[in-house]
Every structure is written in C-alpha cells, then in structure tokens.
C-alpha cells in the first residue's frame, strides 16, 4: 500500500507491505539507521521517535499508521534550526557524557526532546519518571538525567548567532 507522511520535515510517499514496523521502514527501506532496535517488543525505548510530536516506540508502530502523520527521527534533530549544529539536547548529552556505548542514546534523546517540549522546566524527579520507558545498560542513568536537565535549559535559551 502507498503511504504519504512527513519525515523530518520532508514529505515522503512510500510503497509498504502493511505488516512493516516503522523500525524496518526506517532502517531497511529509508536507510535511516539512527533509530535502534533493542528488544523489538516496546520495552526498551531504543527505537523511540516522535509521531505527531509524541514520543512513541517505533518497533510497535505499523508503517500504515504513518499515513498522513508527521514523523521525526534522531536524524531530523540536528540542523532543525536551519544550521548544521546538533540539537541542544544532543549537545547536552555530549557535554555531560550522557552515554557510554551509545545504543540507547537516540531513544533517550527523542524521549527527552518530547519531555521538554511538553514540560519546559522539568524537575529531576519528572525527568526520571519521564525516562521510565528507556533502558540504559551502561551509565546508571546519572549522566543521562544530568544531560536532560542541561538540555532543558539549553532548549529554552534563544538561539544565538544563527
């Protein structure tokens, strides 16, 4: 079936087999491998993307459900303000060493961006609660939480020099 949707700000038209999870569409068909597949059963959050602005696990979203929707993946964050710069949340993960192996990072960043968009000044407890659907097996979460707190501040700062 043919589906039409907006992917990282660009309209796309793709012919998909209905039984295709969005993870497969992104990684296999569209060569966007930034979205990672961990558990493949919506437990771990490595595949989190923004679906009409909401953080969702793309392994448990069917490609046909994208028809008419707007999807943002980790690839769509950098340069979203018109420059080639990393998104402020990505910068914050970099600055605060919010990752070790990096496998969970795309999902963490997407969840964090959605969280801060909904709640511009989250408390640390709200950040921890908001990250409950994203598992990290390396960091012990401390630096991830610090990154999201810093990213929240940065996302609210007016962009300078662009």
């Amino acid at each position, binding site marked *: *079936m043919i589906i039409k949707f907006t992917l990282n700000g660009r309209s796309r038209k793709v012919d998909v*087999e*209905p*039984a*295709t*999870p969005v993870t497969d569409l992104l990684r296999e068909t569209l060569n966007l491998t930034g979205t990672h597949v961990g558990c*493949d*059963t*919506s*437990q771990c*959050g490595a595949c*989190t993307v923004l*679906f009409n602005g*909401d*953080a*969702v*696990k793309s392994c*448990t*979203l*069917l490609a*046909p*459900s994208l*028809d008419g929707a707007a999807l943002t993946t980790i690839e769509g964050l950098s340069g979203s303000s018109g420059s080639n710069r990393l998104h402020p949340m990505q910068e914050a993960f970099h600055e605060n060493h919010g990752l070790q192996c990096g496998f969970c990072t795309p999902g963490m960043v997407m*969840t964090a961006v*959605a*969280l801060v968009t909904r709640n511009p000044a989250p408390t640390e407890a709200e950040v921890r609660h*908001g990250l*409950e*659907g*994203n598992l990290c097996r390396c960091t012990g979460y401390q630096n991830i939480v610090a990154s999201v707190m810093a990213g929240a501040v940065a996302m609210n700062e007016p962009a300078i020099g662009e």
Partner: protein
Amino acid sequence: MKSFAFHSPGTVPDAFALLNDVSESKLLAGGMTLLPTIKQRLAEPAALIDLAKIPQLSAITVDGDALVIGAMARHIDVVTSAIVRSKVPMLAHLAAGIGDPAVRNRGTIGGSVANNDPSADYPAAVLALDAIIVTDRREIPASAFFTGLFETSLEPNEIITSIRFPIPSTAGYAKFKSPASRYAVVGVCVAKAGGRVRVAVTGAGPCVFRVPEMETALEARFEPGAIASIKITAARLNSDIHADAEYRAHLVTVMAKKAVAAAIQGL
C-alpha cells in the same frame, strides 16, 4: 511479522462490516499489546482493522451524571483531560501511572479493557465505579464484563465504542507496581457513590474482583483504619516471580488503605 492486510475505516459501522467480511481479522487500537503478540506469533490475523481514523471514538465528554471516555482515548488523553481531572481525578492519576510515556502515547482505554490483562489498571476502576462498557450493539455492566483471565463477555467482532463512568462522590486508586513494566502487582480502586462503596482489586488474581467485606466496613466508616484488619485469603491469588500469593494478599489490604486515603484527599 507474517503479512496481513490493513484497513482504516472512517466509521464504526464500516469497521464492523470489515470485521465481518474479512475472516481472521482483528481490531487494532494502539497496538501496544496486539503488535507484540503478532510478532511472537501468538496471533496471526489475516487483516487488521485500524480504529485510529474514527475521530468520535477518542472523545471525552460528560453526559448527565456520567463521564464518557471513548474507546480510542489514549492514556495520555485521559491524563491531560480537564474534564477527567475535574470530574474523576482518580482516573487521570491511574492513567498517569500506566507503563511509560511512549506506552501512554499509544495505549488506549478500549484496548486495555478489551484485553483484560490480569495486571492492567483500568479494569479496577471500571469495576469499582460500576461503569458501563458501551459497544456497537449493547451496553454491558462492568459486573458482567470481566469474566476471567484475558476473558471478557465481548462477542466475536463486537466493538467497544466508549466506557461510561458514573461520576462518584470520591474515588482513589493505589498500586504496587512492577518496577520493570509498571503493571500492577496489586492495584486497588475504591469508589464511594452516595452511601455505597465498591472496592475492586487488579493484579492479585486471574481477573479483577471485588472485596465485599471491605465495602461493608467502608460504608460504615470511610477511612483507612476501617479495613486495616481485613485480610483476604491467598487461596486463589497469583504467585509468580514478582510476588507470591501470600504477599499479594497482604498487599491488597495495604493498597486498599492507600486507595481510601487517596479518595479522602480527592485524588
């Protein structure tokens, strides 16, 4: 995943017609349970009938003395609904505790109630508030809806369109959650409507159930102390890696007391 056809009807009658015409078809809500089930080959539908393009199924309204939540209302819609927060704040609190943000952004009340997972949160509220499950063909009282482990009285191809919750004087929900999934190891919902109290327990047994002894005690005196010494028997409760039956029986009293305290605070 094994291949299947995909249909997105725009109305409930069209969805019903598709369900009837296409053999081995299944309704798709948020897919939070159905898609992992298909991936694990525990279900092999020939077609999915998607309910996402039927806008009126997501409506949240007040109708007389009832709060009506459409089957496709997502958990996040219930959390953020001003109507829910003012009429039955307990439901917003319950929905906010389901899974994680991504699950709340896709999972629906209709899918949760239809699935009747023994540790799901909504069944406790549906039973305690004496809600009515409205389908494409009839209205089913909660007391006749949840019939067993993952079993309901829905007929084949019956579509839940909304849940009608009579607005209680007060209600509270407390759960001891699994730290991994946030499903209820034991969850208790207590609701007071006029002079009547209903206590419903999820997570503890194979299916949500009421505790009449606690209801009588709370009707006489609506405070946590009234039920502190009431212990339910562990005989038919679940034992698994999360908790054994004895511990679950203990948790029922603890969570029921917390639910009463929450109800008194108006949560």
